[in-house]
């Protein structure tokens, strides 16, 4: 009934398009706020250089922003096009933050970015500053609402499953919004965006120093960005820690996978700093372990324990057994919504309905009465995400995070001591750091979303059931199309970005005026 290959292709497409989209989002999040900072300095001190800075970095922001907008369009519709059952299953709850994101964030950001770019000569300084703030606020609001939506997938709160309408219906908007996962993840992600933008600006400023060009702009941009990034960097890690803390309670399988914790241990638990997990054999090779560290990190105490994969699988088997009658009741209710016996049966077993749906995959012709113990063991094993990917993505993200924090602290100290422009090695280091935050963000996405598997909505809706019922041919067509288009976009984007970095801040309007054979004009408006 469901073609596994289609599900895999749908997952590949979603992952590829989301990871790609997420290359552009963090920079926009941070750079818009940093532009607001630069412009505030300009408006309060009246120093022209800060206006030049704001305008130059706006130019780079826009090259990035265009792709963020373009690839974001795909995301807004991809739930419906490729995750049709997911969409009807959660739309009642998950759709709301998406729609609110449009109302509250996208309109604000998108309406004002036009004014921010085109309106320099049409507004007073103060008005333009307000416009810039509106753009920054809009982009940050959009992160808030999309993460509220995402957190519902990680930790479904505020909704209840209705077995007749077959969907999770919103009960408590406050619980959806104030989801503990959403709050820490919002701050974590937004601050990661600030760090990304900070390291981007520092890196390019350092490159100008290496080339001996635009030194005033480079020096000041570096200083603003380093301080801004350092303030953000500490927060990313604190909140990342809070996320682990929250995650330990609500997504124990994700945590166990992050730590490659196959078998139960007593407190204080050791931390696998390095391990090569083998999913089939359920054990690690070549581990480097730090005693007691896991208990300290995850439970902030020496006697805390977290469940291991073997324990979680046993729990999952229980829940699968309990979930089977829930799904059977659902089927009866689908035929007759007035079936009181089925409704009572669902009430009794409904909390594990997701686990019943998980094992449905192994039911011959969808008949759950034919499920064997071996099927249950197999489905329970499915509840563990890919340990290697989650384990290593997490470690790479954290390592990069610590590296970035150390770098930003050093960068702040050096820029305050006026050393950055003297130390060429540090300028090179700053340049080399530029890809690091982007990679860290991508790995962070992998930890969060691969770690959520095999669910699209944790404990409620299995991924295999969520996908649209397309043919393989359709999926090959769409995936190829995305790969072709997005590759072409990436080439164009990087080319333009490098070109405009190389041109630097003085080449105002070069693309336009040069094309028309005119000298690069000032900011006089010839005609109104």
């Amino acid at each position: 009934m469901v073609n596994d290959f289609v599900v895999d292709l749908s997952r590949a497409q979603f992952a590829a398009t989301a990871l790609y989209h997420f290359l552009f989002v963090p920079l926009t999040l941070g750079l818009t706020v940093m532009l607001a900072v630069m412009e505030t300095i300009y408006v309060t001190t009246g120093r022209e250089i800060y206006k030049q800075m704001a305008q130059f970095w706006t130019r780079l922001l826009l090259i990035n922003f265009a792709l963020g907008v373009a690839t974001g369009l795909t995301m807004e519709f991809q739930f419906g096009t490729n995750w049709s059952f997911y969409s009807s299953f959660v739309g009642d709850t998950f759709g709301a933050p998406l729609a609110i994101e449009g109302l509250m964030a996208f309109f604000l950001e998108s309406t004002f970015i036009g004014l921010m770019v085109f309106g320099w000569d049409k507004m007073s300084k103060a008005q333009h500053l307000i416009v810039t703030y509106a753009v920054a606020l809009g982009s940050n609001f959009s992160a808030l609402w999309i993460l509220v939506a995402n957190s519902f997938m990680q930790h479904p709160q505020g909704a209840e499953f209705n077995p007749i309408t077959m969907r999770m219906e919103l009960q408590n908007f406050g619980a959806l919004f104030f989801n503990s996962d959403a709050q820490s993840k919002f701050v974590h992600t937004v601050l990661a965006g600030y760090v990304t933008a900070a390291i981007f600006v520092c890196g390019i400023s350092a490159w100008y120093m290496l080339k001996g060009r635009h030194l005033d702009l480079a020096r000041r941009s570096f200083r603003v960005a380093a301080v801004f990034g350092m303030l953000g960097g500490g927060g990313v890690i604190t909140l990342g820690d809070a996320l682990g803390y929250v995650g330990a309670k609500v997504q124990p399988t994700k945590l166990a996978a992050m730590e490659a914790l196959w078998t139960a241990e007593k407190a204080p638990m050791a931390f696998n700093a390095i391990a090569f997990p083998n999913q089939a054999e359920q054990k690690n090779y070549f581990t480097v372990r730090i005693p007691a560290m896991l208990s300290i990190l995850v439970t902030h105490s020496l006697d805390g324990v977290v469940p291991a994969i073997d324990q979680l699988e046993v729990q999952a088997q229980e829940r699968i057994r309990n979930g089977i009658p829930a799904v059977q009741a659902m089927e009866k209710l689908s035929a007759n919504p007035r079936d009181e016996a089925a409704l009572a049966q669902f009430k009794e077993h409904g909390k594990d309905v997701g686990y019943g749906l998980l094992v449905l995959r192994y039911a011959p012709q969808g008949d759950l009465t034919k499920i064997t113990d071996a099927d249950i063991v197999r489905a329970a094993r499915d509840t563990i995400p890919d340990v290697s990917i989650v384990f290593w993505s997490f470690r790479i993200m954290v390592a990069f995070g610590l590296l970035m924090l150390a770098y930003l602290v050093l960068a702040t100290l050096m820029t305050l001591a006026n050393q950055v422009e003297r130390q060429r090695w540090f300028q090179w280091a700053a340049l080399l750091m530029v890809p690091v935050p982007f990679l860290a963000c991508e790995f962070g996405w992998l930890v969060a979303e691969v770690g959520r598997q095999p669910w699209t909505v944790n404990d409620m809706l299995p991924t295999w059931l969520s996908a649209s019922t397309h043919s393989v041919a359709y999926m090959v067509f769409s995936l190829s199309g995305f790969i072709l288009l997005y590759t072409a976009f990436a080439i164009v984007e990087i080319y333009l970005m490098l070109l405009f970095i190389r041109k630097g801040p003085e080449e105002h309007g070069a693309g336009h005026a040069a094309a028309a054979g005119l000298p690069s004009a000032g900011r006089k408006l010839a005609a109104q």
Partner: protein
Amino acid sequence: METYMILLVVWWVLLGVLLTGIGAMVGMDMGVGTLLRYVGRTDAERRVALNVIGPHWDGNQVWFILGGGAIFAAWPLVYATAFSGFYIVMLLLLWSMILRPLGFEYRSKLPSPVWRGVWDTALFLSGLLPMVVFGAAIGNVLQGVPFHFDWRLTSFYTGSFLWLFNPFAVLCGLMSVALAVYMGGSCLASGAEDPVGARARRAAIAGGLAALVIFTVAGFWVSTMEGFKLVAGPDPGVPQTPLHQQVTRVAGGLLANYATHPALWLLPALVYAGLLLGALAHAIRRPILAWWLGALAWIGVIGTVGAAMFPFIMPSSSNPAHSLTLWNSGSSLVTLTWMVGFVVIFMPIILWYTSWAFWVMRGKVGVKHVETSDHAY
């Protein structure tokens, strides 16, 4: 139950508002893209056209994004069924639409004529194709779409991709392109200096008249088509799903609501009034008035379709009993209530700052402006 039904109707009207917003605001930018090579004979003239909507296209496009989000939130089954059913067509829509931000942003960044030519083509396609798909989708929904559900409400689309481009759907697609040309032309006529403005005015008049002809033809066509009739829904008192209803097909059924409520004929009349007066407004050089009359025509078009289909939102042609209606595909009471709250608070704010943005950027764009400004596309 009473409140819930009122909320469903409110959200059905808001769905219409969203589609009108997409038609008027996104359609206007799409029209500019479609007309780019016609109104702009030289590179500078094309840049004039692009810079007229330059400050606004991004904000306008949010109508489209909000359309996706709001349908997801308020009509999840419609979102799930329609967008997966129309898969390949949706991809064409998305792929052409994602060219647009890049077209605007990247086109004038390099002086090379080849580079700009490629992006001009991209902007043309990303103006034309989405409007064809938008209209064709409405045309398909009017006729019914071949889909059904299994017991879990997983939807299965059983038609072919090519069927979505059946003659009536294509006619509706052309209708939406004609209206886009009208809106885009009106926008350029008001925002661009001559000769771009003058050409745009001629295009707008032609687009508006073409839309009128197509609307008339489509209207007669619709009167001969089969409509759907909801004979019985699920028992009152149980949550509504598309699994327990009886639906029959009725010849000429799309006009049934008009027969029972003749006042509904005001909606198609609005289309005629809007476009005819709009052409007149262009003739006396009042492009902004003409734009608003075009928006009125869009309200008429969406209203006409909605009135013809009520209470259906997306009927199934292959299994009419599984048709999606107003009553069985909306979100729950709590969600619809919260969402109404957000719309009531934010929509006026959005309209206020959008108007402010247009007011700040008022005035005409000319060739001299784009060649000397630092902040032009």
